[in-house]
């Protein structure tokens, strides 16, 4: 690793100030960033650890909204969200492995927006609101392509607000080596319609499958998806699966998610 110093502020305000330094970089759970640093693929001069900021940790459930602090670990989400939003807890408990879940955070995952990560699918399918130190961003406006988000330099995800759906499920088909999603589909049914978000598949990162959404909004059953398919163009193609295969999996997994949710 290149050398850098770590700062561990205890408030969002201090963290934002620290991130204003040249070549400063926020450190969430570090489960993606630290391996990248070890490979010398980044050279920040200061890492600003968000671990000691209590105000961005924890889960609160208020009526139909689950609010999760940006610094909340996957393990905590898995343990505490289950009663209010079981599909989200189910997603969290299948991210990475236990040790990764004890460190990795929802804010870190959403800020990174890895095209194969799980949380972006949940946030987009839930129509979640990403809360930062300066503003609130609707999920539909937040994700801007792989590894790209609406976040400005130095902006911190402080919380994510999930409206609780009537029914939802996340089905992940794992890439056998990394265990990231080769394809993951999150289906969430709300009073005003169904949202379907797909991760792992597109070269543009997480996206909504609008044809499936309209079909499911009028008939929330797997049969509503009969005959619907996506093109493999623009889908990730790598040694684990072609774009066409990923497109095929999206259709299969969406049906399974609908069945699991129903």
């Amino acid at each position, binding site marked *: 690793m290149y050398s850098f110093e770590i700062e561990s502020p205890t408030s969002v305000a201090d963290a934002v100030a620290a991130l204003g330094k040249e070549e400063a970089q926020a450190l969430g759970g570090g489960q993606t960033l630290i391996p990248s640093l070890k490979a010398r693929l980044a050279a920040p001069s200061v890492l600003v650890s968000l671990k000691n900021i209590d105000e961005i940790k924890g889960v609160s459930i208020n009526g139909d909204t689950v609010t999760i602090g940006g610094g909340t670990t996957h393990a905590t989400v898995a343990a505490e969200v289950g009663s209010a939003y079981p599909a989200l807890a189910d997603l969290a408990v299948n991210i990475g492995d236990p040790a990764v879940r004890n460190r990795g955070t929802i804010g870190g995952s959403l800020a990174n927006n890895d095209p194969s990560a799980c949380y972006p699918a949940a946030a987009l399918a839930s129509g979640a609101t990403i809360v930062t130190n300066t503003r609130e961003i609707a999920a539909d406006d937040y994700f801007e392509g792989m590894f790209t988000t609406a976040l400005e330099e130095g902006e911190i995800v402080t919380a994510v607000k999930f409206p609780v759906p009537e029914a939802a499920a996340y089905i992940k*088909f794992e890439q*056998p*080596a*990394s265990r990231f999603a080769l394809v993951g589909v999150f289906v969430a049914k709300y009073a005003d319609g169904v949202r379907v978000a797909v991760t792992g598949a597109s070269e543009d990162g997480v996206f909504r499958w609008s044809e499936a959404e309209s079909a499911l909004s009028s008939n929330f059953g797997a049969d509503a998806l009969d005959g619907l398919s996506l093109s493999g163009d623009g889908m990730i193609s*790598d*040694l*684990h*699966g*072609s774009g066409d*295969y990923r497109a*095929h*999996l999206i259709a*299969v997994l969406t049906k399974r998610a609908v069945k699991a949710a129903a």
Partner: protein
Amino acid sequence: MGQLGARAGLYDAATVRVNATGSISVMVGAHSHGQGHETAFPQVVAEMLGIDESMIDIVHGDTSKIPFGMGTYGSRSLAVCGSAMVRATEKIINKAKKIAGHLLEASDADIELKDGQFTVAGTDKSVAWGDVTLAAYVPHNYPLEDIEPGLEETAFYDPANFTYPSGAYACELELDPETGRVTIERFAAADDFGNVVNPMIVEGQVHGGLAQGIGQALLESCVYDENGQLLSASYMDYAMPRAEDVPFYQVDHSCATPCTHNPLGVKGCGEAGAIGSPPAVVNAVIDALHSGGYTQVDHIDMPVSPHRVWKAMQG
């Protein structure tokens, strides 16, 4: 194997060093990298001498301590190096019998070794292992003209032939026709390893081989692009088998036809699991596809990934 072109020999060597108080260091050329030599090798020497394993230590992995050795590979440790150890221990027994014969005032031809006691055949005259070893190093009243002091022997053993274990393996799996994903449900391996020194270790060797073979069949692959860049060059893309990729295995080694040309009658076991499992898995996949009506699929190259199965099903 020199006649086949091997520039190094394929023998192995062992030194059995008996200390004055009867404890033993066995310097072996084989070098364990997980196979449990420190446990299995003393079992053989203990059996031959009738003493407790705790008196015997294995020394390996250091050229300054070991006469010579070709190392551990090719399922060879016990069959080749173990045989050298047996030969060296036989030399120890021969010399110890001479010493015992002297102490018991009997001909060494009449001395029997059982349970760590040297006995004059047909009598109740006996002397313990420790008394003999002490005499070897503290040679008062010792026929120095006939017997050298000390009790240390080395043997090199060059096998006359390979050993030929064999086995029959079966795999039961489920194939998800929508995604192409294969899940191994059951796996059975019946092997003939000849005689077995430590069944627990032998079974562990088969388990590990099975996981590597299942890994080759379903998961693992080294992929280069057309420019020679290695794409599967970390655990992010090279799929190592994990606990949930494999089932509990059923393994058996009760069909035993001992090897005829090494003194232990053992055959190699370390590689067996990795040898039999890949075809068992792929045959089962093809069988599953045929039974599901995909009779056009003759073969799928390994690793039989979900993507490849799906492609094969597309025709």
